[in-house]
């Protein structure tokens, strides 16, 4: 904790007003609180994946410098969870992405505007369905 | 620096070496180990007695009684293993070990005969007598071992 300074020793004037926080139009989100580890649902309300990490990038460039506007390029899921927990970063070609343009709403869950079938992120689910579960009798029928 | 690291290491090594060397068993601890095995055997024989009584009075099905006695046989073999692998610390403990082994073997025979009877071979009275005798013997031995262990 910094020691308490005398009024005369403070580096700012007493009556200085702090600048107003910018209030852009639209929804303001905290990426860590509202996006990371949130369940993603597709347009039919079916679970797609949990957001394990975010891919950030400046529009039109692959490298970032100090004041560039950073945009969320995609939601990431899958093996990137391991690097999120233990550190490091997988190469760009190994990331399983959900493009940001597919996101329609962010609330307690992240809603997408596309069907899960079209997303790369769900390839394991489709593979297990087609090659394991689908081959067991009764797998494609409703329960009960 | 080396000395401060070496000392705890040497102490640890000494403690471990002490644990590894021979049997520091006292007669009381031997009696305790044998007593636990004899208790196990008593439990098995009493279970068999109860199961035999239930079969005699037609209160239990043959399947349940057979399973119960089968489980008792397993318990007796565990007890027998515990007794026979004990390394006695002296002549008294050796004598107890021999007696315990004898008692557990007698119990195993009685329980095996009970199982035969449950499956239709043998007569109820002999089986009952053998089980009662074995239970009594194990109980006496158990009491003596308990007194020796507390001494």
């Amino acid at each position: 904790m910094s020691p308490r300074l005398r009024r005369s020793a403070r580096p700012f004037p007493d009556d200085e007003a702090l600048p107003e926080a910018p209030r852009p139009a639209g929804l303001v989100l905290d990426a860590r609180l509202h996006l990371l580890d949130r369940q993603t649902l597709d347009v039919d309300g079916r679970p797609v994946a949990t957001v394990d990490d975010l891919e950030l990038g400046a529009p039109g460039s692959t490298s970032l410098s100090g004041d560039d506007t950073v945009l969320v390029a995609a939601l990431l899921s899958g093996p990137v969870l391991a690097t999120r927990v233990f550190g490091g970063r997988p190469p760009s070609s190994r990331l399983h992405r959900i493009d940001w343009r597919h996101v329609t709403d962010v609330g307690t869950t992240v809603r997408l505007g596309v069907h899960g079938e079209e997303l790369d992120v769900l390839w394991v689910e489709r593979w297990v369905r087609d090659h394991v579960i689908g081959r067991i009798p009764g797998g494609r029928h409703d329960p009960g | 620096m080396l000395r401060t690291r070496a000392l705890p290491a040497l102490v640890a090594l000494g403690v471990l070496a002490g644990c590894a060397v021979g049997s520091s068993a006292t007669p009381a601890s031997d009696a305790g180990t044998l007593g636990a095995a004899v208790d196990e055997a008593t439990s098995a024989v009493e279970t068999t007695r109860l199961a035999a009584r239930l079969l005699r009075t037609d209160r239990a099905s043959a399947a349940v009684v057979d399973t119960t006695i089968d489980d008792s046989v397993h318990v007796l073999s565990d007890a027998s293993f515990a007794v026979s692998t004990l390394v006695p610390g002296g002549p008294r403990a050796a004598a107890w070990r021999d007696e315990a082994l004898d008692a557990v073997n007698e119990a195993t025979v009685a329980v095996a005969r009970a199982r035969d009877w449950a499956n239709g071979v043998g007569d109820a009275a002999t089986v009952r007598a053998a089980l009662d005798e074995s239970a009594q013997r194990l109980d006496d031995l158990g009491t003596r071992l308990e007194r020796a262990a507390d001494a």
Partner: protein
Amino acid sequence: MKRLLGVALGILTAIGGFLDIGDLVTNAVVGSRFGLSLAWVVAVGVVGICLFAQMSGRVAAVSGRATFEIIRERLGPRAAGANLTASFLINLLTLTAEIGGIALALQLASSVEPRLWIPVAALAVWLVVWRAKFSIMENVTGLLGLTLVVFAVALFLLHPPWGELATQALQPTVPSQEGHASYWYYAIALFGAAMTPYEVFFFSSGAIEERWTVKDIGQSRLNVLVGFPFGGVLSVAIAACAAVVLLPRHVEVSSLSQIVLPVALAGGKLALAVVIVGIVAATMGAALETSLSSGYTLAQFFGWSWGKFRRPAQAARFHLTMIVGIVVATGVLMTSVDPIKVTEFSVVFSAVALPLTYLPILLVANDPEYMGEHVNGRATNAVALVYLVVILAASLAAIPLMIVTGAGS
């Protein structure tokens, strides 16, 4: 009338679904060695499970999300991941014990060795998980499990010395032939058997499966607050039967066959048949719940599609997890390991894992973002905090006591 039947069904299912192989074995072992001097632990455990099951059901009904989904959102992937690993492994251990219990009960009915029943039991569990509707599965196993009330009936038929039993229960002392360390070890085991961690994940995910809303909170509260205590009474009845019949004969319970002997003594072949049906139903129900729990926790952590209300093709990884779990459990059992020993370990490790399971639920139940106005009241929070301390103490003491007592021997 229909509503009354629905309420009754809910309560009866809760009673019948309370007991599993862990409760059966631990209560019988405790009864045969300590009499009723550990009955107070059952009471403490029942209050605890009522508290946390009710909380997790409320979370699911109000927020529409299952507890484990929210745990990851609130605690982050590292803490939730540690929680998942521990819960999943202990779940698998419990599943192994339950399937073993089914096989042992079928051995009692048929005299066929358990190793031959294990694949049959595992296949039956998988088939129900694969095809049966959630509510039918719950109701059938719950109602059939209710037949375990025969333990209470048997206790009455044995004409026990009620005064002596009451003294043992209300003024607990450590029996002379047992040590203090063993007493507390079995207290923790009994606590872990009553407050099974999988129950809470199953309860909240089950609430989503049955599409509970805020209106259903009342019904679920009734089920839990009436059903679970009755289940606790049955637990104590099992211990009392063992205390009355087995303790005087110096029989130490180490197999399922010994657990049913008091019932046979009291009620003959009919009671024996009823109790075997009850044990098969209770262990089958618990096996279903644990395998579903393993699927729920893994799927909810990773965000997979899950639920028995979906066809398996639409929840492929969820079903694959459960298949793998059942196969692993079967593999372990086929090595001829004693299911009773597995059960005894599973209840102690359940006690060790309890803080990991219950602390997140407490945090989530207090979060207004998910719960709105239905957050925990002050009274609930006060009791929950007391329980958190108890759970932490039990969890920390479990492993040292296990080492000191040699797992209770």
